[in-house]
């Protein structure tokens, strides 16, 4: 197969940049364009809710690559210009400013947009956290307020709560689960997380849905719960999930259903691929359509896509992985956890706040969770079902 006459990567974050780098590393010498909705050079998102929000890092430290590494890519960066339409037959992308960019191969890596609460738009004091600008705006507000309510009891919500608490604020975490990440982690780690947050001074208003916001004179004053209770707040962070950015593909003919639906090669149509948070592809080993919202998937899937753009014709069959840092705890998860799984402690001891647990269903290990034991958790990665099939990046 001849290399494509031009590759256009739509999305300039971890997945998009990695796809571009991998194309070059694999010997692609043709035209390469990276289109980004945001004005910034590619930056990393995981530090936004931790080091950048907390002020330990200046924003520059979250940049994905130094400028000389970006220039050596020999790619055209078109930044601050969101994609607004795709012509599948022509493989051309229209941008908000009216540019039309065409290429023989298109990689869609447009990521996610945070979900919001009704009535949130335009209300002062309410934030989401997805972009660098979001993080800096939230940080500015946190520095001049005293009470923050985080709507969200998942990874992002729990990280934001921990960071805000570490900044000295009065923090309440609200969400429908009985404990942070309970649906994902199951009872034991979720209970330990609840204890971690409580012992660090985070108030937990969990187990009740959030129905909306209260406001006065255009500024948020609190969060309303399904119980009728209102949690008073100077600042509210809404972090209860995100949706794939696919609106711009409506009418293109691509199938978008909770992400860009792709085959096992991460191909949505002839010459059109998707990678990262936005891609929902057929995982051959697990035989499901899967969409993963985590940092490692962004790069591994981008690597697989780069190979397939150049004709590798290989399925992408990763063992999912993510980590989260909250206060002094680092949690690492390989594979998939089910809240109703059989959980076995295989190393360390929860009482010491240092352990590795395996999660099984029907005797098959589907996931491994490490609590302050990253290396030991990683060493058990090969026990996870499907781990014998190498990650997309390895060849």
């Amino acid at each position: 197969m001849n290399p494509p006459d031009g590759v256009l990567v739509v999305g300039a974050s971890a997945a998009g940049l990695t796809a571009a780098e991998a194309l070059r590393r694999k010997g692609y010498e043709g035209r390469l364009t990276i289109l980004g909705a945001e004005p910034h050079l590619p930056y990393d998102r995981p530090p936004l809710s931790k080091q950048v929000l907390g002020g330990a890092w200046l924003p520059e430290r979250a940049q994905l690559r130094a400028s000389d590494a970006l220039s050596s890519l020999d790619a055209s960066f078109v930044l601050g210009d969101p994609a607004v339409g795709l012509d599948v037959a022509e493989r051309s992308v229209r941008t908000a400013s009216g540019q039309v960019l065409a290429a023989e191969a298109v990689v869609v890596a447009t990521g996610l947009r945070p979900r919001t609460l009704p009535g949130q738009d335009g209300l002062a004091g309410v934030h989401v956290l997805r972009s660098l600008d979001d993080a800096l705006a939230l940080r500015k507000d946190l520095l001049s307020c005293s009470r923050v309510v985080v709507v969200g009891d998942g990874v992002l919500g729990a990280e934001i709560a921990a960071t805000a608490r570490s900044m000295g604020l009065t923090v309440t975490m609200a969400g429908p689960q009985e404990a942070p990440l309970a649906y994902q982690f199951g009872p034991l780690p979720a209970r330990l997380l609840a204890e971690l947050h409580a012992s660090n001074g985070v108030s937990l208003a969990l187990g009740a849905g959030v129905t909306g916001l209260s406001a006065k004179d255009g500024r948020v004053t609190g969060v309303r719960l399904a119980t009728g209770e209102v949690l008073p707040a100077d600042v509210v962070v809404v972090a209860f999930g995100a949706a794939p950015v696919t609106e711009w593909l409506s009418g293109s003919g691509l199938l978008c259903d909770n992400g860009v639906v792709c085959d096992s090669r991460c191909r949505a149509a002839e010459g059109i691929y998707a990678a990262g948070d936005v891609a929902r592809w057929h995982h051959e080993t697990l035989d499901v359509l899967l969409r993963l919202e985590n940092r490692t998937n962004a790069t591994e899937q981008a690597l697989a896509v780069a190979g397939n753009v150049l004709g590798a014709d290989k399925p992408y069959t990763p063992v999912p992985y993510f980590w989260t840092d909250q206060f002094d705890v680092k949690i690492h998860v390989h594979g998939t956890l089910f809240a109703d799984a059989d959980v076995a402690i295989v190393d360390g001891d929860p009482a010491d706040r240092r352990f590795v647990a395996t999660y099984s269903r029907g005797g098959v290990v589907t996931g491994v969770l490490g609590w302050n034991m990253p290396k030991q958790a990683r060493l058990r990665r090969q026990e996870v079902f499907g781990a014998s099939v190498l990650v997309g990046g390895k060849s």
Partner: protein
Amino acid sequence: MKVTVDQDKCCGAGTCVLLAPDVFDQRDEDGIVVLLDETPGEELHDIVREAASVCPGVAISVSS
């Protein structure tokens, strides 16, 4: 090739160890990256570049 790691950025995923166990390891106590070989041989250059590119903590740099 010269490899450098930024332990402050390392998230402890161990992706680099999975790819290039002769070049990278992790500390037992906290999973932070340990550089075993800062000038790996040529046969490892491709995989080390890949490790740097996919590192989820952006903690690995490679200069030629």
